[in-house]
């Protein structure tokens, strides 16, 4: 390293000897953290004399006479020009967020922002490394235009709901393709339990991430052909940089609490309103004078000291959670060899009792230039992650489970105790919560006993590695090859005690272990060409990529524990059966190419082509061809533009246009196209049965995407504007096409290519250096996305696709032609009849019918308002109740710096959608469930106008417990203060000779404030996780927590 510097110095000396000159020296540091930047190009303005800074950021340059300023340029930083005054010129470089020379990572290569003609966004790793999250994807909210990220619930390590430019499929995943250092990896939830989630992206230590590039339009994603219909996230991990070894230590600790919990009735209120409901039922049933029908069923319990038992179940289900995260990295290198090494330890608690996440990881990356024409690179990461959670009812397919913690927290009776006087759990004879003096049977569990007597864990053990090389060939060709492996073993363990009070009591206790191995390898090779002939710049890329996923799962389910001592599968049980067995493989083979051409740095053209083979598709259509073209015109480089007055204000103008066709064949089932028979048991006899009706013609979904964009740079690029219009027509949608149940097809569905839809909208990104002074700066970035989704065709005569939340009685969403995917669905209501307090429904004929849960014998529960018998409201009366997909969303982030202080404010917002506040149905449930305090607004007197019907015991329909009703549909618009961070950079003089070069301490808060008219816990909640067809449902799920963090970043 030093040799090079001296060689350069020598060179400059030689040049300097030819003219009158002087020597200028100085130091280049990064503006944000004062750390020295090596390798910065320092040039004299207007003259081709230049040097580079050394490892300490120092430079020394011989400057010819007449030169009055120096230019400093470095990739990733804004170029600055400083006047020469005196012998020393120190420069502080500011990192660019969207400078034209910024590198954009595109598939199988990089381009500069200037050359790039598609639509992409880059998110720096520094934005995710300090966030109190489990996986980096959770920290991207509001960071980029067109990218919507929502947390479906507050359980640790849930995969967030990510949508890049909307929902682009119906039955397939709308999760983007995630590529880490070149290898596409598994996403979603790989846990086999509906209690504890396991997002495999949490295996990546967020601090190892250098950058996240989001590819949004077809022209950018089509290099990934069929795998990229939902966009692509390209993750680049950190690598060493030439220079002295840099050591960085980052740590944070945090505290999380539940936010926005509903206010519940206490014991007195509970008994009051429940008994009111019991009495109303007695009267309405015509039993006012019938002594065999109770007038009250709820009675108080007293503690030993005579006080009323008044249990707040929140105390046993929620907690203040503490978390910590430590990260250390060492990186550096010389001219030929660079390295990066890091270690991470994370130990996080969730605010629901028992919810934990732990990660230990190690990563190394190394680059070596073997010879001038051969480069070698390798990397590897090993980690273990551990997830533990009780069932919260928040994950998909757990909404109505009796063990769901979120519902237990609100529904359990407050007038009974957690423990008996002798310290044992208060339980009924079947193990549910004992109801004390209440005369009703309870089906819900004693949360404390349930939690103590069960555990659900899922643990990953993973190695990801890659090795590759680059050979420089003659004629500007370069050959690149990378082999990557990703071996992920997951162990899912569930234990339910045999003791009374456990949900496993009825089976004598149970333990389930399921082990899964996901083996994934990828070999990608490219031959590229890059050359300039005068004003012509041509690059070309040809490649071949083959990837294979093999998944094996096996396990066992044991019941009837020999003794309640056993708390795991390895104990002694009398019955053991196989559980969770599976074996599948999937392969992709792809040929691709990209050609770019630009003329005179003004006109840019890119064309992509990819031919993909996918093993999961039908025998008749395994291969598909995809591609895109894009063009850009840097108007501001044109002479005519430079002559315009406006060019002094708008100094950069670029027009972009692209069109592309990408596919989607990401069926989750590796054998989706095949008709299959599976084997099981009939008693002890072996069976075969039709387990899947296939479709040999199953082919790709295809998206035709058009993208038109305008990029502006104003006031010396201090303000940058990016506007993009996009239209994505998706055809041949793969649908789990519903089949008439009477056909007896497994799951009543067959995957078919039917249906089409579009996503259309525009994005606006604004980045501004509002104030840039020596001691004070304000940078702001704002993004806005407007999107419209509409389904234009569906299977078999456009019949609706009904989406269900957990069970088939909860038909909560409908996908209907002419509306957006997964619109809210349910019975339409029209308030409460002031005359009698009954809920009014609107039937399919548009008539008003009212409901009373209890009526006297011979009367009908359902009547018209005049009292005549009406047909019951059923699913055939359901209406589409509103769009569930946000129509607009985005973020606003501000960074203020004053001397050594920095303040970051990140705000996210979304709206234009409706949310089914199904939890409201639970909070008003008229069984023995506790209610929220708003229940006091129930109807009581003739003429009263209210939205809460008369309380009738066991009424499960009027408030939306049995099926969704429009009374619970609310607007989902919100603005969230996602994070607020205050940091202080310790002045470097403090460190003396300690070896510390920089240090920053910070405090931050996440989810501090939510402005919304939505009355549920969180408008971003999603009981169905990432599902395309059932979005916008909040039902019995835990909301997001509020987190306070303090942290430190130290550099050596």
């Amino acid at each position, binding site marked *: 390293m030093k040799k090079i510097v001296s060689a350069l110095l020598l060179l400059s000396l030689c040049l300097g000897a030819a003219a009158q000159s002087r020597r200028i020296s100085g130091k280049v540091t990064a503006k944000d953290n004062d750390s020295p930047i090596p390798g910065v190009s320092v040039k004299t303005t207007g003259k081709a004399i230049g040097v580079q800074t050394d490892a300490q950021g120092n430079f020394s340059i011989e400057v010819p006479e007449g030169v009055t300023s120096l230019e400093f340029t470095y990739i990733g930083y804004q170029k600055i020009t400083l006047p020469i005054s005196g012998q020393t010129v120190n420069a502080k470089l500011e990192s660019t967020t969207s400078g034209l020379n910024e590198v954009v990572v595109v598939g199988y290569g990089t381009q500069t922002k200037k050359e790039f003609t598609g639509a992409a966004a880059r998110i720096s790793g520094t934005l995710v490394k300090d966030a109190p999250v489990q996986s980096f994807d959770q920290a991207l909210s509001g960071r980029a235009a067109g990218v919507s990220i929502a947390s479906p619930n507050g359980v640790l390590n849930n995969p967030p709901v990510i949508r890049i430019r909307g929902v682009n499929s119906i039955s397939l995943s709308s999760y983007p393709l995630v590529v880490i250092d070149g290898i596409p990896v598994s996403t979603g939830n790989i846990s086999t339990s509906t209690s504890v989630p396991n997002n495999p992206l949490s295996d990546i230590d967020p601090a190892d991430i250098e950058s996240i590039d989001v590819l949004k339009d077809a022209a950018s994603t089509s290099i990934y052909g069929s795998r990229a219909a939902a966009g692509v996230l390209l993750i680049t991990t950190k690598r060493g940089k030439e220079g002295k070894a840099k050591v960085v230590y980052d740590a944070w600790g945090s505290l999380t609490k539940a936010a926005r919990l509903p206010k519940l009735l206490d014991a007195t209120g509970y008994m009051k309103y429940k008994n009111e409901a019991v009495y109303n039922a007695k009267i309405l049933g015509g039993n006012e004078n019938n002594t065999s029908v109770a007038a009250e069923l709820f009675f108080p319990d007293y503690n030993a000291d005579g006080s009323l038992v008044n249990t707040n179940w929140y105390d046993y289900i929620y907690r203040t959670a503490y978390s910590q995260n430590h990260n250390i990295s060492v990186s550096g290198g010389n001219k030929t060899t660079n390295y990066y090494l890091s270690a991470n330890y994370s130990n996080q608690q969730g605010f629901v009792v028992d919810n934990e996440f732990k990660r230990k990881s190690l990563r190394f990356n190394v680059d070596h230039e073997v010879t001038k024409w051969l480069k070698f690179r390798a990397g590897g990461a090993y980690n273990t992650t551990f997830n533990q959670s009780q069932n919260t009812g928040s994950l998909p397919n757990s909404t109505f489970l009796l063990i769901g913690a979120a519902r237990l927290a609100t529904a359990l009776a407050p007038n009974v105790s957690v423990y008996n006087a002798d310290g044992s759990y208060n339980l009924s004879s079947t193990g549910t919560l004992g109801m004390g003096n209440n005369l009703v049977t309870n089906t819900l569990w004693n949360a404390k006993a349930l939690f103590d007597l069960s555990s659900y864990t899922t643990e990953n053990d993973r190695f990801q590695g890659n090795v590759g090389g680059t050979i420089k060939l003659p004629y500007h060709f370069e050959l690149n090859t990378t082999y990557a492996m990703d071996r992920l073993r997951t162990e899912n363990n569930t234990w339910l005690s045999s003791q009374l009070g456990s949900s496993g009591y009825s089976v004598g206790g149970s333990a389930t272990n399921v082990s899964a191995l996901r083996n994934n390898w990828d070999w990608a090779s490219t031959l590229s060409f890059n050359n300039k002939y005068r004003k012509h710049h041509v690059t070309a890329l040809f490649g071949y990529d083959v990837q294979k996923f093999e998944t094996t799962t096996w396990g066992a389910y044991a019941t009837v524990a020999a003794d309640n001592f056993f708390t795991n599968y390895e104990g002694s049980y009398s019955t053991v059966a196989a559980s969770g067995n599976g074996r599948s493989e999937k*392969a992709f083979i792809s*040929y691709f190419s990209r050609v770019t051409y630009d003329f005179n740095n003004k006109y840019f053209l890119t064309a992509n082509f990819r031919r993909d083979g996918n093993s999961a598709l039908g025998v008749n259509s395994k291969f598909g061809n995809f591609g895109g073209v894009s063009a850009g015109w840097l108007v501001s480089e044109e002479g005519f533009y430079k002559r315009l007055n406006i060019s002094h204000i708008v100094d950069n103008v670029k027009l972009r246009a692209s069109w592309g066709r990408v596919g989607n064949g990401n069926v989750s089932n590796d054998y989706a196209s095949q008709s299959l028979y599976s084997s099981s048991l009939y008693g002890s006899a072996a*069976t*075969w049965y039709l387990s899947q009706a296939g479709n040999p013609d199953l082919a790709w979904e295809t998206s035709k995407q058009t993208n038109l964009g305008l990029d502006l740079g104003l006031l010396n690029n201090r303000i940058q504007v990016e506007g993009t219009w996009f239209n994505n027509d998706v055809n041949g949608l793969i649908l789990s096409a519903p089949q008439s149940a009477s056909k007896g097809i497994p799951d009543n569905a067959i995957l078919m290519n039917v249906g089409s839809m579009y996503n259309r909208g525009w994005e606006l990104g604004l980045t501004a250096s509002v104030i840039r002074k020596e001691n004070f700066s304000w940078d702001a970035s704002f993004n806005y996305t407007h999107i419209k989704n509409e389904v234009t065709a569906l299977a078999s005569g456009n019949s609706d696709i009904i989406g269900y939340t957990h069970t088939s009685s909860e038909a909560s969403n409908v996908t209907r032609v002419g509306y957006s995917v997964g619109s809210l669905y349910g019975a339409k209501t029209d308030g409460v009849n002031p005359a009698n307090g009954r809920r009014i429904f609107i039937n399919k004929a548009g008539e008003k019918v009212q409901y009373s849960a209890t009526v006297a014998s011979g009367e009908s529960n359902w009547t018209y308002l005049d009292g005549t018998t009406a047909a019951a409201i059923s699913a055939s009366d359901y209406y589409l109740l509103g769009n569930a997909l946000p129509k607009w969303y985005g973020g606003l982030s501000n960074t203020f710096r004053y001397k050594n202080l920095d303040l970051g404010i990140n705000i996210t917002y979304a709206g234009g959608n409706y949310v089914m506040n199904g939890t409201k149905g639970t909070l008003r449930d008229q069984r023995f469930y506790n209610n929220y305090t708003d229940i006091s607004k129930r109807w009581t007197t003739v003429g009263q106008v209210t939205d809460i019907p008369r309380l009738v015991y066991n009424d499960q329909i009027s408030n939306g417990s049995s099926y969704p009703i429009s009374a619970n549909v609310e607007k989902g618009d919100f603005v969230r203060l996602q994070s607020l961070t205050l940091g202080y950079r310790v002045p470097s003089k403090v460190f003396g000779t300690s070896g510390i070069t920089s240090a920053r301490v910070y405090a931050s808060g996440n989810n501090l404030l939510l402005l919304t008219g939505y009355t549920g816990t969180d408008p971003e909640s999603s009981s169905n996780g990432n599902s395309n067809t059932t979005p916008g449902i909040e039902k019995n799920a835990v909301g997001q927590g509020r987190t306070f963090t303090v942290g430190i970043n130290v550099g050596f």
Partner: protein
Amino acid sequence: MKKIYLYIGLGALLGFSSCSEKDLLDTVPSTSISDANAFGSATRILGLVNGAYDAVKAASLYGGRYLLYCDVRGEEFINVTANSYTAYESWNNSYNSGSNDINNLWSQAYTAINDANIIIAGLATSTGVISDTLNAQYTAEARYIRALCYFSLVTVYATPYNADQGASKGLPLRLQAETNGDNNDLARSSVAEVYAQILADLDAAEANLPDSYSSDLLNTTRAHKSTAIALKTRVYLTMNNFAKVVEEAAKIVPQTTAPFSTTSYGVKHALQSDITTLFGTTYTTTESIFSMPMTSTDSYSGQSAIGYIYNANSEYYLNPSGILGNAQWGTNDKRRSLLRVASNLYYLKKYAKASPYVDYIPVIRYSEVLLNYAEAAAQTGDLTLAANLLKAVHARSDASYTFADADVATAAALVATIAVERRIELLGEGFRSGDLLRNLQTIPAKGSSSLQANAVEPSASNYIFPAPNNELTTNKLY
């Protein structure tokens, strides 16, 4: 030299593609077989037949819950949990098209029907793998399964046959194997047409089913000739075709006085001396004509197991004003030992095994055939035979009981007494609401101090189950 580099580069690039595309892309699952091979061996064909039985054994069908729905609709049980996942909606007759039970039951019965249709279609074309005799037997078993499922559906989802001699709309009658996306739309056949198909299937089944199998287990869990005949007595009884009930019953109940037993066919069906042995001890006696086998590796638990709902979790107790208090059910009646008492409430313990819930679920018992026969005999004027049959069933569990003359003197009295006997003998085996519906009787009101269910008149829309959404939304001709 430079050219060599280039050639090496291109060669290496192309070399990678030598991985066979076919090997990589034509993946074949190793845990299931493709449709092309399903009928490939004798073992697999037998597996398909067992698979169709297993579909009948699904939790929502004869794995137990179908019995639960049909029982709790009637007046014998009182619900305590108001939980719609354990048949509360059946108990208070408040089902709607979206209800889980309504959708799951329909879907599961039709799955079994399609499995049967696949076997029937596959065996019609497959030759050489199994003998013609076996081919005919398997086809007969499939038709028996299809008949059982259609009968199970038509009696709950369609207007009772006796209301209008089957003129009402019944069910979509699916008789061909469905394995692709065609044929979603199919209009309902009339109730009469559905019954005609059921009887055609059972007649054909009777012709080709074996007299018996090699073991008691197989005799109980797979259909033989008597199984088809026994089911026919139930079907004809539901149609009030008493002459045919007598005709069919006589084939397997040839005697006119006790003891009654089957003589003509391989399996000598007869009442066991102690009814309690059928529940919990010996599931494969000659009294159990057709039952669903349960083993520790193939059984249901939790809300899928009726043993859990009735017994372990005590969600239904016996209505004190139902059959429990009837004088015909004497205190010494052995059948009372199939109940247990807790806090003065009686719970059914016909399915009493704790986890794993391996009690077999009875579908057809010989005592039911005797009672079917008795009712038909009474209705057709053979009062002596009717009384003999009735007494045989009753005396087996309570030998000391003597029927009052008034209870057996006339045809009408006998029919009423037999109806009571059915409620005692077949309690918890899925008969009560079916018996109410076939006689077009009102479903009585019932309740406790906290939960009440109103009576349901035959004219009420909830007298039968509503059609499920999973059919309504896709079958435009329904």
